[in-house]
């Protein structure tokens, strides 16, 4: 600081800056963090009351440390330290036997028997899917993971296009890879539909040009839309019916994590758009649409998923004519889809209701159509509001997929439980090892979804964060 030219000179003026001292140990670094978050609350002995509180905090902390410590150590001990990792002699369950049972481990040993999980690995992950065709599952999973990563990592180019591919080409490719494609539909039938679609599009075009009178002119858009839909259907059907020379794999041969992922991903991908449509429908001014959507939502929310699955797999075949049965997995998929759509609809409706009325009116005032208003103004805000709710529904859905095991579809949990029944591996720790393994897999997926949701929330709500 420069000397100020004043008449009255102070007695002491510091001419250089005070040296920068490091922050006190209690304020920075690990020590500071520990002090502020843990020890500060137990170090106050200035008054009898504060001393009692501090002592209580010390006691409480010690108990917590003890409880967590023993629990975590117990888990690590079970899963890692005392666990059996290999079965070099191929003796199966004897590798995990104690002396009492005729094996070599000390009596009272109680820890994970990982060779069992390793042996059942393929079954738990893919069920009875034919081993020589497993490359198709790997390919589908790898493409899915790569595509998803591409869409989610923001630095990469062409993310929008990648997302589009993931929603169109990928499901079809996966369907063909997993089932083998070549579904039994006559190509002539598909061709007829294709031509029909083209005809509809032409009618739409003609109507648009005003050559078919005023009435048809009104509906030109619908004709064109329906036409494009039919054309798209028949193209998809034609690809699915094409013989790619892949060995067909019945969905009855799918299992394990594969089923869990198929059910969860289909449910997740289908439930969001369906849910948005239902939510908009429920808030629609048109009574028929609003009542229909409300009935649909309330019906599916009013029945437990387990009932839906049971009806689909046990009762439905009795209602259908004898000999007619369509795929068990597809039945469960449709049930899960509709069920989660109803829940999603309510989550989205919450978001729609949280949007200020001014936003709706503003959009109307600038002359946007209903769909423009929703797409450009309302939904982007509404969906951002309810990301936690949406991801919550996704995570719930992911875990609810385990319910399909009660209708004879081997999801990850079902395959695990079936593996537990294998007498060749039966030991006292057989079941608990498998459940630990299944639990870890579920945790990884659900925790991943939850983290991504937090990241999305932070990114999208920067403008509104307090």
């Amino acid at each position, binding site marked *: 600081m420069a000397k100020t030219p004043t008449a009255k000179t102070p007695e002491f003026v510091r001419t250089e800056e005070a040296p920068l001292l490091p922050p006190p140990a209690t304020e920075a670094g690990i020590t500071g963090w520990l002090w502020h978050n843990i020890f500060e609350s137990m170090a106050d002995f200035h008054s009898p009351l504060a001393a009692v509180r501090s002592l209580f905090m010390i006691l409480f902390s010690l108990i917590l440390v003890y409880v967590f410590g023993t629990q975590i150590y117990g888990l690590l001990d079970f899963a890692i330290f005392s666990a059996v990792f290999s079965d070099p002699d191929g003796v199966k369950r004897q590798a995990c036997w104690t002396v009492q049972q005729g094996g070599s481990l000390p009596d009272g040993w109680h820890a994970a028997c990982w060779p069992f999980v390793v042996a059942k690995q393929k*079954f738990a992950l893919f069920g*009875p899917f034919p081993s020589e065709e497993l490359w198709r599952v790997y390919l589908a999973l790898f493409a899915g993971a790569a595509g998803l990563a591409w869409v989610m990592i923001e630095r990469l180019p062409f993310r929008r296009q990648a997302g589009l591919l993931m929603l169109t080409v990928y499901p079809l490719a996966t369907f063909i890879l997993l089932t083998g494609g070549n579904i039994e539909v006559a190509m002539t039938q598909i061709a007829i539909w294709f031509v029909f679609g083209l005809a509809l599009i032409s009618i739409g075009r003609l109507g648009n040009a005003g050559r078919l009178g005023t009435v048809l002119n009104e509906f030109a858009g619908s004709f064109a839309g329906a036409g494009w*839909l039919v054309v798209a259907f028949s193209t998809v*059907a034609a690809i699915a019916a094409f013989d790619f020379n892949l060995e067909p794999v019945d969905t*009855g041969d799918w299992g394990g994590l594969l089923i869990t992922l198929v059910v969860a991903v289909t449910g997740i991908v289908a439930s969001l758009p*369906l849910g948005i449509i239902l939510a908009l429908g429920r808030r629609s001014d048109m009574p028929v649409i609003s009542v229909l959507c409300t009935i649909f939502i309330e019906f599916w929310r009013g029945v437990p998923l387990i009932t839906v699955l049971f009806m689909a797999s046990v009762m439905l075949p009795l209602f259908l004519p004898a000999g007619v049965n*369509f795929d068990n997995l*597809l039945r469960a998929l449709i049930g899960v889809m509709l069920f989660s759509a109803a829940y999603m609809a309510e989550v989205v409706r919450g978001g729609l209701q949280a949007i200020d009325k001014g936003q709706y009116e503003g959009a109307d005032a600038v002359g946007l159509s209903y769909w423009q208003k929703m797409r450009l103004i309302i939904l982007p805000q509404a969906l951002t509001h309810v990301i936690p709710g949406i991801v919550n529904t996704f995570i719930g859905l992911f875990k609810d997929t385990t319910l399909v095991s009660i209708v004879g579809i081997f999801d990850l949990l079902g395959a695990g439980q079936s593996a537990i*029944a294998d007498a060749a591996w039966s030991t006292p720790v057989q079941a608990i090892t498998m459940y630990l393994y299944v639990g870890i897999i579920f945790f990884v997926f659900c925790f991943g979804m939850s983290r991504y949701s937090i990241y999305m929330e932070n990114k999208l709500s920067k403008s509104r964060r307090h």
Partner: protein
Amino acid sequence: MKKLTLAALGVAGAMIASTAMADGHGNSTLAQVKEKGFIQCGVSQGLPGFSNADDSGNWTGLDVDLCRAVAAAVFGDSDAVKFTPLSAKQRFTALASGEIDILSRNTTWTMTRDTQLGLNFAGVNYYDGQGMMVPTALGVTSALELDGANICTNTGTTTELNITDFFRANGMSFNLVAFEKADEVVAAYDSGRCDVYTTDRSGLAAQRGKLTAPDSHMVLSEIISKEPLGPVVRQGDDQWFNIVRWSLNAMINAEELGITSANVNATEFNDVSPSVARLVGKEGNFGAELGLDNKWAYNIIRQVGNYAESYEANVTPLGLARGVNALWSDGGILYAAPIR
């Protein structure tokens, strides 16, 4: 675009449904099975020794072998069979609705099931019965000494009713501790929560390996219920019923006649007794009577084996001796009608 994906799913669904409908037009089960090229067989979701998926997901077990035998009889190929794992609740609906062709899922033959469900039991491939396991330390040698015992069992099964009947009939008191899953029952019994573990004797044997000290437990000699387990088919298709019944009978007869998968080939070239000749199709026209190839039983024995081979491969490793499931000529009650 999401709508499009949905639509595609819908189309795929409708197409699968319509193909399934196209399949359903055949009338007899045999014709339908021959048209699709395999047999759909309902099995359990995992019961050691009877129907159980091994490490690579292949089904093995006594019940599974029966389905393979029928496939061998119909197609001459024991692999022309697909398995549908079914829960206890689903099994009869799955059969009645035509989702499966045979139910071979350790199903007890009872009068209600035979008369009221529109189903027929094609025979018995295993005579089971409910047994009781106790720790040897308990010092009990007979079930009649179990007055006041804590008993672990599964909820909602006939085992629960049978044990109640047994204790009431003998004027003893007991305390029932019921769990949903077999694993929970075993864990509770192993931890000393109960004195007795009761379920079917085959189940007791299968679960024994899950105990901390398997050798310090014993199975009491009393059998308190009759559980004849066998394959089930839909009522009203006698040809298919006969095929399943005689596939089972062929396996039992083969054991009785000493024909195994190893020596059945030799019967082609050597002189054999008339009953063997009828079994392997050298004499008579028995296959044609069933609507099958005359080598139907030959194929069963060649590819699946006789009853003893199947039993020894699947059930013996559980530590279950033949017992009542031995042939009638060996002191058991297994008795198949002759092929002639």
